[in-house]
């Protein structure tokens, strides 16, 4: 188990390094200079700017400096904002995005598997159809469509749900819902099919014939086994939530990291784009590692086979 953990950790570091390297060289492959938009400037100013951002050094040195700074947790300076560094922006935006993402995830995690389990227990009855409809809507309606419709038809008619902004709990309800619906639908579908499979297993029959209550059979024997595939897609889900937050924050005007990212794209603020990308990658790789560890704890088979290797 220790060996497996170590292997996963090394893989994560390699992944992270690959992302940083790709991002760095992609961003430096952009033709033209990043200050072109500022208009014509005296050569002295231009040279000073180059020096300030270290752009006068050879590329490999810039790369090494960037890597060194990253290791020390310094994401660099923003090219457009004179007052805030990339770190400041991450510090300001990330808690907002993290809260939104966490709420959406909790929402999906509570209702998704529950809906899927209900659908399987009442196959081809009302709960099954309801969950199927929710799943189809969740999967076919992109979050930006869902977000706009929520604003148009819910927020405009329900007075305590604001159209946008940030600050109180009521501001988070609609965005979390719009963001969490797709993962909820995916989880519900997965849960339904794996639950149907589990319910046909012999050990469920055994548990029933032992005289366990229906509730105990479902909770202890069925759900516990059926939930494994749901845990395995958590990593992808978190990745989707992260990207989904760009869109949702834009629609609802939430001052999160996604909004900074989208704005930095519009502004062509290269250092900020690079910084946020690397930061997102870091969060994601960490989350994937956590999910893997969770999966290992939940499913003893993984532990055993990995040790067997």
């Amino acid at each position, binding site marked *: 188990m220790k060996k497996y953990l170590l292997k996963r950790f090394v893989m994560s570091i390699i992944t992270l390094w*690959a992302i940083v390297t790709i991002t760095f060289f992609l961003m430096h492959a952009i033709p033209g200079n990043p200050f072109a938009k500022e208009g014509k400037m005296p050569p002295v100013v231009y040279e000073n700017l180059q020096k300030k951002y270290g752009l006068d050094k050879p590329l490999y040195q810039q790369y090494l400096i960037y890597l060194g700074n990253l290791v020390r947790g310094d994401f660099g300076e923003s090219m457009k904002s004179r007052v805030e560094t990339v770190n400041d922006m991450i510090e300001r935006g990330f808690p907002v995005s993290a809260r939104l993402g966490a709420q959406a995830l909790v929402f999906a995690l509570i209702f998704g598997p529950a809906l899927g389990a209900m659908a399987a227990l009442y196959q081809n009855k009302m709960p099954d159809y309801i969950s199927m409809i929710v799943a189809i809507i969740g999967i076919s309606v992109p979050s930006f*469509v869902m977000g706009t419709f929520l604003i148009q038809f819910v927020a405009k008619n329900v007075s305590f749900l604001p159209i946008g902004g940030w600050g109180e709990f009521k501001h988070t309800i609609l965005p979390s819902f719009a963001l969490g619906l797709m993962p909820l639908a995916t989880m519900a579908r997965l849960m339904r099919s794996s639950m149907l499979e589990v319910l046909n297993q012999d050990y469920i029959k055994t548990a029933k014939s032992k005289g366990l209550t229906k509730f105990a059979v479902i909770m202890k024997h069925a759900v516990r086994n059926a939930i494994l595939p749901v845990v395995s897609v958590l990593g992808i889900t978190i990745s989707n939530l992260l990207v989904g937050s760009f869109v949702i924050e834009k629609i609802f005007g939430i001052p999160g990291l996604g909004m900074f990212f989208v704005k930095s794209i519009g502004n062509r603020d290269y250092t900020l784009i690079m910084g946020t990308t690397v930061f997102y990658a870091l969060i994601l790789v960490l989350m994937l590692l956590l999910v893997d560890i969770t999966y290992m704890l939940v499913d003893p088979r993984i532990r055993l086979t990995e040790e067997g290797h």
Partner: protein
Amino acid sequence: MTELTKEMFERASEEQRNAEKIRRPSIKYWPDVWRRLKQNKLAMVGLVLIILITVMAIAGPMISGYTYYEQDYSNINVKPNSDFWFGTDELGRDLFTRTWYGARYSLLIGILAAAIDFTVGILYGGIAGVSSRRVDSIMMRIAEVIYSIPYLLVVILMSVVFSSQGSGTSLFVIILAMTITDWVPMAILVRGQVLQLKEAEYSLASESLGADQGWILRKHIIPNTLGPILVNVTLTIPRAIFAEATLGFLGLGLQAPKSSLGSLANDGLAGMAVGLTYQIIFPALLISLIMFSFNVLGDGLRDALDPRLRK
């Protein structure tokens, strides 16, 4: 032992002779899949919608009599009426034409991305599947690293890098960005299938009956992998369309006046802010319909191809 006399034997009648004959034509695999797919109403709805949307994406921009780029300042922000079926935008462009024109791009991107994923994934996965364990494990580690990069992040990054300020992203870059990480699930799927089927008992049986590798590949491995691959392709298309729509919605789509459904929704968001909801509803609805159709068709296909569900 009793002696066999002529009386003990009787000429078999025509009916008895044919008793063992298989009269009905045997149902082959693909007709059977199609037969089961037809029974899935939701999947059929999806298929019909895909055909309808494709036809409209081809013919739609031609039948309204307007072009997607023509600006008409006397008809700005017109609500849907008999002249402009979906209304017009803030530059007086006909939204009916623009919406179907956008659907054309969205479908094109989805299909091209799926085709590239298909080709690259099959080659990479196939090679990994038949290679030695060491090569296979290295190839799979590389694929894993690529896949753990959040792909929309890459897409966004690439469209930032390869499009100069305000020029929009070219179709080529969008598709490149879309496929750069998305071929991995296909490769993993193909590799798994090849590894599994190589060892399957019917492959072994075929081999012990003297079949060569080429025959086994042609007759056993490829036909049996085709199903899961087809399902994966039907699910790749909506994923690519969704990614492109998100890109367009973030303002990184095709250059105006070209449109995709995502960039139309982005334009429509501005319209909605001033009360012109119709500008966002049509593209939004169409994206959802496309995603719905491909997803239910993919699901239906998966069920139809699964021999365990055969009755």
